[in-house]
């Protein structure tokens, strides 16, 4: 047992170490992109169009923009290494503070969406695999084909139209909670958890209904790859010898499907979930914009349109880091679920 834990730890360490060059590349590319961006942030943030040359020069000096780009890069890398991500010019706050405040909103949305997607995708995929070629199978295939064709910003807006305008079931699709309602005390930053912890169930329900539409929008977007993978991997597992043995030994069908087949079939689904998660990080930008969701993606987008470097750089670095972490986590989970993988 202790050996396994050690092996896993070594594996995690190796994977993290080997991802450092890629992360460094991400930081450098983002930095360069932000520096060649047209528009001078010093001019943008000078007191007004009438700002004198001297004032702009002073701002440039204060922001370190008057140094050569390689020097700026080295300074930036040093700052990042010490955890200083710079200061946002639009909000006036340190970027790390802004991101810490906004990250829970994005994560709550992404995780809820992933949960909803898995909740539907796995049963759909399994049902389709149990009866290949049946109407159910064709229905699932059609759903998957359509699912990847609808851009998230269109499906989000249409959901708003149906559930807010036509049916009136959903609350006003802006922000995480009604502007007149009190937000929960800041504990974890996840509204659903915070409301539950303080026992304010009315607030919990308000936050939940607000979250449902954006989460469903994103879930629709990732339903297809998850369901498709579940179907494919379930099909190949169901054809295995051990399934035949199990049914020959007279085990019940439910038991065979759920205990023996599904558990084995979920491994490839796990891998796809990792990939899906990283696409969701990108798709967040569009969904957060549609629903005015105060997450990190909309923060980065606003900063990008205002030529505010620091938040964009921090956001890209954060997303890349989360991406790497998720991949390592999936790797470890895979190793635990299927010990044969970690042998090599």
């Amino acid at each position, binding site marked *: 047992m202790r050996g396994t834990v050690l092996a896993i730890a070594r594996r995690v360490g190796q994977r993290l170490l080997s*991802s450092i*060059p*890629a*992360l460094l*590349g*991400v930081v450098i*590319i*983002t930095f360069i*992109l*932000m520096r*060649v*961006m*047209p528009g001078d942030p010093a001019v943008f943030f000078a007191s007004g169009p009438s700002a004198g040359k001297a004032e702009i020069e002073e701002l440039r000096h204060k922001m370190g923009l008057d140094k050569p780009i390689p020097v700026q890069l080295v300074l930036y890398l040093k700052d990042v290494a010490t955890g200083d991500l710079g200061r946002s010019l639009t909000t006036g706050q340190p970027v790390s503070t802004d991101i810490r405040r906004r990250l829970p909103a994005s994560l709550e949305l992404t995780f809820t969406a992933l949960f909803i997607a898995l909740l539907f995708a796995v049963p759909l995929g399994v049902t389709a695999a149990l009866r290949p070629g049946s109407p159910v199978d064709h229905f699932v295939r059609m759903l998957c*084909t*359509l699912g*990847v*064709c*609808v*851009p*998230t*910003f*269109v499906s989000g*807006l*249409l959901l*708003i*139209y149906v559930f*807010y*305008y*036509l049916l009136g079931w959903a609350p*006003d*699709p802006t922000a995480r909670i009604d502007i007149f309602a009190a937000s929960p005390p800041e504990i974890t930053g996840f509204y659903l958890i915070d409301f539950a912890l303080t026992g304010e169930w009315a607030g919990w329900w308000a936050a939940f209904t607000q979250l449902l539409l954006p989460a469903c929008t994103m879930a629709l977007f990732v339903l297809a790859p998850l369901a498709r993978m579940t179907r*494919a991997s379930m099909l190949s597992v169901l054809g295995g010898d051990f399934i035949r043995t199990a049914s020959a030994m007279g085990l019940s069908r439910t038991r065979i499907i759920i205990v023996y087949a599904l558990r084995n079939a979920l491994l490839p689904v796990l891998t796809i979930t990792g990939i899906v998660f*990283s*696409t969701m*990080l*990108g*798709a967040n*930008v*569009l969904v957060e*914009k*549609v629903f005015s969701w105060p997450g990190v*993606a909309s923060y*980065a*987008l606003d900063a*990008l*349109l205002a030529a505010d470097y620091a938040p*964009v750089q921090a*956001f*890209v670095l954060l*997303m*890349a880091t989360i*991406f*790497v972490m998720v991949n390592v986590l999936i790797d470890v989970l895979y190793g635990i679920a299927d010990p044969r993988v970690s042998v090599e």
Partner: protein
Amino acid sequence: MSATTRHAMFVLRGNPVTALAATGMTLVVLVAVFSPWLAPYDPIASDVAHALQPPSAEHWAGTDQLGRDILSRILVATRLDLSIAVSAVGLSFVIGALVGGFCGYRGGRLDRWVGRIVDVLMAFPLFVLAMALVAAMGNRVENIVIATAIINLPFYTRFARAEVNVRRDAGWVEAARACGEGHLSVVLRFLLPNVLPAMAVQISLNLGWAILNAAGLSFIGLGVQASTPEWGIMVAEGARFITTGKWWLVGFPGLALMLTVLCFNLLGDGLRDILDPRMRT
């Protein structure tokens, strides 16, 4: 009839959806070519007296906030959206196939470096990278093309590299070399043409993705100027009116996007059935 055509006909007969997708695709291309003549109204002429009108016999898809005919705008936008996607995917296909092909053939230091660059690109959330690229290079349509091409590049490079790599030491490649073909010609005339069918499937699937991507970029306000007829920006402008029930501003451009992407994807699946029987689902 050659064996390939016969095989294609055989597969198509069993899969009418592909034929349907091909027809749809042809229609989209025809619209893209002839849209200026097909559009019933001027796509940029505003008519404030008839703003925000729901679909009617006069305006089949309604009018937008400036009274512009939505159907005309959608038809005219087809050309722009399609050419962005086609040129982006074409660009990344050519570069990716060449770079990946040579890396897979030669291996060594070049291969390792390219592999590392690809790893870095793959570590980005791709849509965010595209956003940053367009913002950095300037808000122009060409830059949407370049950004979309760059985020597609890793897939083509990896794909071409892997496919060429497994064939590198095949008998017929050895034979070509033994006949005195240079390395350049072995890659260009022998290896890449063999990889092409598998890549064609990728291209078709990627085109759909590229269209969604470009529309997403213009939806957030990057790349295309606001007055230009383009599906993503039409959705973005219509978004303001969705909470007051003006669904046609978003619905019709959205439908155009969806149907086009659907055609590309179904065609990709069909192509895979025809070209690569091993992958058939």
